[in-house]
């Protein structure tokens, strides 16, 4: 995945630092609580929500089950409509294809609508290396790009930034990239949005190449769908002469009719709206309307490996609504950056280690970045059982073994002996209570310290519960 995340520490270390950043925690808490409350209202408007969720799950499962056939059907339909389809096994190949397509136009800059797939493959960096500048045009992505930052949320990539921070970034950085921010820019959201409008409009009007992802691809008709709010998507999809869309192979749906499910569940789950302000749908190219050349790059990059895992493949149902992020107690405190991936939160914790494997310390730590409370499963509009996959991935990581897991076994064995010997347990408890002033915040030694680095140890009570009970109740 994206080179931006190379060298990231494992989740416990990253989270350890993030939870102590009080500004970050306040920004995140405000944002996630606002959006989760609104979402609940939007969902409650539909009496048939459970049936829509089940239909979404079944449509996606069926799609995955016949993915080869639907991809071939999609390719035929897109080609028949005047588009060109490319297949990319991995990030390097996808980046190569896009760079070559841009070079063939003779252009050295592209405008981009926010796309998880292109972030995943690190397209901007790859284009940069080829002398091509990619401009992000989603307001939040612009904030991230200007701030030389990384996105921290699927839907609201700059969720970790407050208005004051955004003002400072715009005032100091916009001039480096084009039209500077107006003098005397304040931190009012309307003014900040206006500054982004003026800054980006000149880029939209001269852009010859647009790059996008897609929310859905319809196999039956070859239609691509992008949902968005700001109109930057419409700008990128319609004003340039060449449009290049990079889309994960799991984004296909079989029929035009299937959109009736996802266009009801996606906006309500993600932005808590009945419908997002703009939805664009296009099929190949159209005479005298929009780009004259359309290229679709179908991206694997680990998806077929994920598909091969019978428990884990349900992660490919994901429609990137980000509802799971907004309800997750771990995400709310640790923030998106701690996950070290473009896919943060609960879905990231199962998607990332499947897409790129668990060889790195970071990726092996992600299945543990959860309290397994299940809130993510409850809100998921395609019913991905995230806790089930987390446990499954933990098993896989544990099976490979390692010092942590040998110690765990020894600890459990010791605990079993103590619990079988009540006198020893009582003596231990009393000793623990009497020495509590001396207790460290963290346990020493490998294994135990890994646990307590990312969790505060509970404070020991002044006396053991069983002593208290004896004194008061017997």
């Amino acid at each position, binding site marked *: 995945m994206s080179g931006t995340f190379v060298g990231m520490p494992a989740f416990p270390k990253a989270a350890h630092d993030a939870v102590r950043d009080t500004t970050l925690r306040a920004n995140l808490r405000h944002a996630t609580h606002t959006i989760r409350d609104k979402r609940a209202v939007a969902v409650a408007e539909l009496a048939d929500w459970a049936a829509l969720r089940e239909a979404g799950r079944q449509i996606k499962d*069926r799609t995955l089950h016949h993915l080869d056939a639907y991809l071939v059907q999609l390719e035929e339909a897109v080609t028949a409509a005047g588009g060109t389809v490319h297949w990319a096994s991995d990030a390097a190949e996808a980046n190569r294809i896009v760079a070559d397509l841009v070079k063939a136009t003779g252009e050295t800059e592209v405008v981009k609508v926010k796309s998880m797939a292109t972030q995943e493959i690190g397209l901007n960096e790859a284009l940069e290396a080829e002398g091509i500048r990619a401009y992000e*045009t989603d307001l939040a992505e612009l904030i991230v790009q200007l701030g030389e930052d990384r996105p921290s949320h699927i839907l609201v990539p700059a969720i970790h930034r407050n208005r004051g921070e955004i003002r400072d970034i715009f005032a100091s950085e916009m001039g480096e990239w084009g039209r500077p921010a107006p003098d005397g820019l304040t931190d009012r959201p309307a003014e900040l*949005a206006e500054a982004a409008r003026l800054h980006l409009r000149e880029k*939209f009007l001269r852009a010859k190449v647009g790059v996008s992802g897609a929310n859905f691809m319809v196999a039956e008709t070859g239609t691509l769908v992008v949902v968005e709010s700001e109109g930057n998507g*419409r700008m990128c999809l319609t004003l340039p002469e060449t449009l290049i869309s990079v889309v994960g192979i799991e984004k296909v749906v079989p029929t035009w009719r299937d959109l009736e499910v996802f266009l*009801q569940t996606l906006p309500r789950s993600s932005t808590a709206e009945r419908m997002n302000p703009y*939805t664009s749908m296009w099929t190949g190219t159209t005479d005298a309307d929009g780009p004259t050349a359309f290229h679709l790059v179908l991206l*694997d990059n680990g998806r077929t490996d994920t598909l091969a895992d019978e428990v884990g493949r349900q992660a490919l149902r994901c429609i990137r609504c980000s509802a799971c992020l907004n309800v997750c107690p771990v995400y709310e405190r640790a923030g998106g950056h701690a996950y070290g991936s473009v896919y943060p939160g609960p879905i990231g914790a199962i998607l990332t280690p499947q897409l790129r494997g668990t060889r790195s310390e970071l990726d092996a730590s992600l299945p543990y970045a959860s309290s397994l409370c299940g809130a993510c499963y409850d809100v998921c509009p395609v019913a991905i059982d995230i806790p089930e996959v987390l446990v499954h991935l933990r098993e896989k990581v544990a099976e490979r073994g390692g010092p942590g897991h040998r110690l765990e076994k020894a600890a459990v064995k010791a605990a079993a002996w103590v619990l079988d010997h009540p006198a020893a347990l009582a003596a231990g408890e009393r000793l623990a209570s009497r020495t509590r002033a001396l207790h460290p915040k963290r346990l020493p030694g490998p294994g135990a310290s890994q646990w307590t680095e990312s969790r505060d140890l509970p404070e020991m009570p002044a006396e053991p519960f069983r002593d208290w009970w004896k004194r008061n109740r017997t």
Partner: protein
Amino acid sequence: MSQTSRDRILGRVRRALAEAPAVREPARAYLTAHAPDDPAALLDLLHENLADYRARVHRATEGELPALVAELLDRHGAATVAVPPGLPPAWLSATTAEQRHDEDTPLTPHDLDGTDAVVTGCALAIAETGTLVLDGGPGQGRRALTLVPDLHICVVRAAEQTVASVPLALPRLDPTRPLTWISGPSATSDIELDRVEGVHGPRTLQVVLVTDA
């Protein structure tokens, strides 16, 4: 190169699914519509939901439409208006704004950027979600027309163009046409989730629901 990747990916998909148990045809136990099947109630719902997402909504008869369009253009100080091919000339018969027709010589992006407003019809409107759907048909024009000018006035022929829901809208649309679904004006919630209208699309969306009487 590309051919090998295609074969490799399809091969991996087939291997991944070799052991997978069969899946059933999806059950569609959800509702076709949530709104009552009553034209007047549907129109009220459309009106309410459009307004809820900060579109300005008006009602007019066919006869009142030209004067209303002229007044809306005037109210926004629109001196120039883009006109898609096939727009009924009567709709703009009362305005003094300069009309820029997007016909033989298409307006360039810069032309559009220098145009204050656009007036269009639509393909249909969805009441439950407060959505207008444009399909590039007569009176709607290409997608850039309703994107670059800052004011969009959209006329809905209420009786024949209003549907209740998304499931009822899709069968009436042709997926091979470029489609734009519009639910309120351009908006962002990227700054502390405060909603701000008008980032890159038109900052103002005026909708006229044309009723027969």
